[in-house]
């Protein structure tokens, strides 16, 4: 699994709860390294969750979000076996995407 994204999407009744943990340094650009030099800003700017082609949650993040960021939310809809697409783009233009099954 080379993706940086880990997702757990569980459907209970008519609500699907989603938790995501993403492997990313989320460097704010304010921290110095051992040599006293600033570690450049490197963080996810936008994280999108899509269900049936439509966004159900969009996160706009800054460097103030913790390393290996986590988020939890829930949306109405989603059935077991359906797909949930998760993708992010960071301030360097890097991206990653994964599709998780709702369980």
């Amino acid at each position: 699994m080379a993706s940086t994204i880990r997702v757990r999407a569980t459907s209970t009744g008519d609500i699907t709860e989603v938790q995501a943990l993403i492997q990313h340094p989320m460097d704010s650009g304010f921290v110095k390294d051992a040599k006293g030099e600033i570690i450049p800003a490197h963080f996810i700017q936008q994280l999108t969750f899509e269900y049936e082609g439509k966004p159900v949650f969009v996160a706009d993040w800054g460097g103030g979000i913790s390393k290996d960021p986590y988020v939890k939310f829930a949306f109405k809809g989603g059935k077991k076996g359906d797909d949930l697409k998760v993708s992010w783009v960071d301030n360097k233009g890097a991206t990653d995407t994964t599709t998780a099954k709702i369980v």
Partner: protein
Amino acid sequence: MNVRSAIHFTSAALTLAMLALTPPATAADKIDPVADAKAFQKFFTDKFPKLKPEDFANGPYSMNEDLHRQWVEKEQFPPYEFSLEMGKEMFSTPFKNGKSYADCFPNKGIGIRQNYPYFDDKEGKVITLELALNRCREANGEPQLSYVRDEMAALTAYMAFTSRGKAFDIKIPNDPRAIEAYQSGKEYFYTRRGQFNFSCATCHVQSPGERIRAEVLAPALGILNAMPIYRSEWSGMGTTSRRFTTCNSQIRGVPLNPQDDEYRNLEYYLSYVSNGLPISGPGARP
């Protein structure tokens, strides 16, 4: 409580603790690990009667409600997740010579973490899990791993994970060298060192649940059960070796090298007196 009375109180408590934990005067030659472990566990369960035995494996999180809630939130999707995944992958990847970690360990290395450390009668020394892993690598032509972080932490995280819930089951064979190693670990634990003149017991026997500056102290009972740990302070994983060496530095003492005899014996002692408590690793800590 002002500083002076705090010192008096803690000295008294330490003395009491020592008395509680050493055998009666007539048996000065007789080291009794069984009695030690019983007294050790009783000390903590008496001090924290509301805690279940397995709660002690959660360190400061069982000592403070505010910390506990933050921990529960993070455990939903824990910060050590990536290290654990890496560990599983590393563990199942063969060495260049075709063999793998499974060949070095009983039961292919699965569900055995609770048996470490053990006393090796051929070598006459305590063998820890971290040491065993590096020896396995050496025996198979692979370079040694740093004992304190990254790959070693990932491997031990995976092995701990396969033992989650299993009780520590450390054995002290009827061998004077093993008894001596155990006793040596115990003495290390209670010996003051460093500029701060703290022993491990100063914080973890006398002051569990209290604060050292801004941090809440963990009880010594169960303190290794969650290893290796993802510490917020490190923003990363660390092993038992990492914690022993950094603690020595933090009390302004000179740390030993990871896996030096004293540390191996210390781990032996600490693990033995927590026998019966479940492995909870890998864990998260502040």
